């Protein structure tokens, strides 16, 4: 196999990226295509709670909401997954038994990633042993900035190995700490070649979190990886996506960059906590013609 030289990773032109974003966001998504897009978005959400104050009860509530988004409207999809800390994985797995909602666990000393390899490995193992279907790891941004790309690569490969065959690995680049789009592209390439099943923008703990330009750069990296390997890598923008309009713009970007095959929760996710309710509000509005109060939708 050809050696991958990450220093020759493609360059990104920020002005060009913004031009492309302007084209995508000016697409007019109305009527039935809006409705279809909203349903799709709901089904792609990783309903997330990642707080110090999380409790068993809160996680249980979240799990119930994941497959009972708004029972007043029949036929709504469930979310793709719930995303929790490793110590809540067991609870979530129990709660979601019999549903098609996956359990994703953040691991590897989330969100900073500042820990030893042993701890990160153990963190991952606990999540996997407790039944997590997906692991969301963070990369070592400090090492990345100091140019130790091999370290970053090896760490991802190590965690991938710990995940085994059946647990999908999402690699969080924490793009808000990477600085430039060139570096976002470089980190994406490293993550994919090291074994990521998904690449993910952010932990949600750092601002800016997901943005359209960063996501476009990552989608284009996924496309190039697919061109050369035929392997489909998933994409998960996370943090800061709280409105339906923005969610639809993300979906349009996926459609026009990677095509229809990526428009399922197998390959695209939103990491979000408040997006679901805005989408529900919009769906209710499309059905009834009027906007309802936020109070009609459960917060958790």
């Amino acid at each position: 196999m050809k050696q991958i030289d990450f220093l020759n990773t493609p360059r990104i032109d920020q002005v060009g990226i913004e031009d492309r974003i302007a084209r995508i966001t000016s697409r007019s998504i109305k009527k039935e295509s809006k409705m279809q897009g909203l349903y799709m978005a709901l089904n792609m959400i990783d309903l997330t709670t990642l707080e110090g104050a999380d409790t068993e009860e809160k996680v249980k509530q979240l799990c119930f909401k994941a497959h009972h988004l708004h029972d007043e409207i029949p036929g709504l999809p469930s979310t793709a997954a719930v995303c929790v800390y490793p110590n809540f994985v067991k609870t979530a797995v129990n709660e979601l038994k019999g549903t098609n909602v996956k359990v994703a666990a953040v691991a590897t000393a989330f969100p900073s990633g500042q820990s030893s390899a042993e701890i990160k490995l153990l963190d991952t193992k606990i999540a996997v042993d407790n039944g997590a279907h997906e692991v969301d790891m963070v990369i070592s941004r400090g090492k990345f900035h100091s140019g130790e790309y091999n370290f970053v690569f090896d760490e991802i490969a190590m965690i991938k190995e710990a995940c085994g065959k059946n647990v999908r690995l999402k690699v969080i680049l924490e793009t808000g700490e990477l600085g430039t789009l060139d570096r976002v592209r470089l980190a994406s390439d490293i993550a994919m070649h090291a074994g990521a099943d998904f690449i993910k923008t952010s932990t949600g703990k750092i601002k800016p979190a997901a943005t359209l330009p960063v996501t476009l750069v990552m989608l284009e990296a996924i496309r190039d990886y697919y061109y050369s390997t035929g392997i489909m890598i998933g994409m998960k923008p996370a943090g800061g996506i709280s409105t339906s309009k923005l969610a639809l713009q993300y979906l349009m970007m996926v459609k026009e960059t990677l095509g229809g095959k990526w428009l399922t929760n197998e390959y695209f996710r939103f990491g979000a906590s408040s997006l679901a309710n805005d989408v529900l509000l919009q769906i209710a509005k499309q059905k009834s013609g009027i906007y309802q109060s936020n109070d009609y939708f459960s917060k958790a």
Partner: protein
Amino acid sequence: MKKKHTIDFSSTWDLAPAPESTSHFKLKEQYDLFINGQFLAPKSGKYFDTINPANEKVLAKVAEANEEDVDLAVKAARKAYTNVWSKLSGKERGKYIYRIARIIQERAREFAVVETLNGGKAIRESRDIDIPLAAAHFFYYAGWADKLDYAFPNRKPKALGVAGQIIPWNFPLLMAAWKIAPALAAGNTVVIKSSETTPLTLYLLAEVIQEAGLPAGVVNIVSGAGVTGSHIVNHPDVNKIAFTGSTAVGKIIMKAIAGTPKKSTMELGGKAANIIFEDAALDQAVEGIVNGIYFNQGHVCCAGSRLYVQESVFDVVVQKLKDRMQSLRVGDPLDKNTDIGAINSKKQLETINKYLKIGVEEGAEIYQPTCDLPEKGYWCRPTLFTKVSQSNRISQEEIFGPVLAIQTFRTVDEVIEKANNTPYGLSAGVWTDKGSKIFNMTSQMRAGVVWANTFNKFDPASPFGGYKESGFGREGGLHGLEPYLKFD
């Protein structure tokens, strides 16, 4: 052999139609000539139909100006120049031009829809580019009107008199703005002729000019085909000819005015080279190539119709281009999601199809994305040709349609030679991540405008014009004032 992985752009999620509303205005059934501040029936007694190229339906009847009509227009312009316009201060002239700019902005939606109906261009472009940019040109030159003495220090600038202007069909209102705004700012009066396929927005502009209270005869608008244009060119009392259009017609005009004191500027055809180096940001370069050639169905004189790709990235660039072309939406120009509208006229579609045939016969490999085209109207899928030679006609002649001819290169010297090897020289584009390469390339491209890591960007403050057979004289910026002035 390596397996090729391609992206499948089919999707069950499609966009619902999103047509721009046309209920906020009504076109007249008939448009008369705008001479001396009034709409006048033509002395010719003739009207011609103007159609919507997207469905071939007649939109309105438009007056055809003959020699007598043109003479009336020039006389009105001369009278307005002598009695009113040349006596006004720059500041007062500026006020009128500002007013035109503001009214265009107020009626922007109407202008955009009519431009799209009459010309076939996507509403996304007329709404976001043509109309705002036209208003911007009036705003920009309004600002110069009272500052001419500072613009040319120690030289006393003086207006020329009556400017005769002939504009093309690809950007009707915008080209009118490029011509009228500097002419008025410099103190000239104007007789302008629209193209025979897209006369409507110029008559909307006539309404704006009336509303702005511009003194009668300062701007006169006529319509008709080439013959009408020749009456303007040959009129003895016209001081300057400003022409935008084909090189062939430009040559005819230059012959006609040879030996007369008429000043002239010509903005003619082009066959721009877009050059991608292996170190370019490829995805963004591809986007720029697409904008460079498929913008306005390729009906752009500065379109990047020749693409030179460094050999090492040829395969990947072509694959990315083809993939991007699949997500371009061809169809109803009034739909807000349409990327590529209708070809402007039947005649132009025939020209484009002729070149598609020539390209195939020359042995080039044609690619067009699969997409449905409407039954009525004039349509052409975005097209690219690979396996093209420098000597092929599709890489030498201006097609003025959505057709891209791709060649490869290995060295910088080779690509400079190939890029400059054309009778034209209007624009060029360079795509590389390396700054020094950009400066090396831009200084050696024989083209009036060279874009680096972008393409088809326009601004009223930036001069635009050609080398070689792409014409002479500049429009836009400070340079754009000079052709409308003489100096003591």
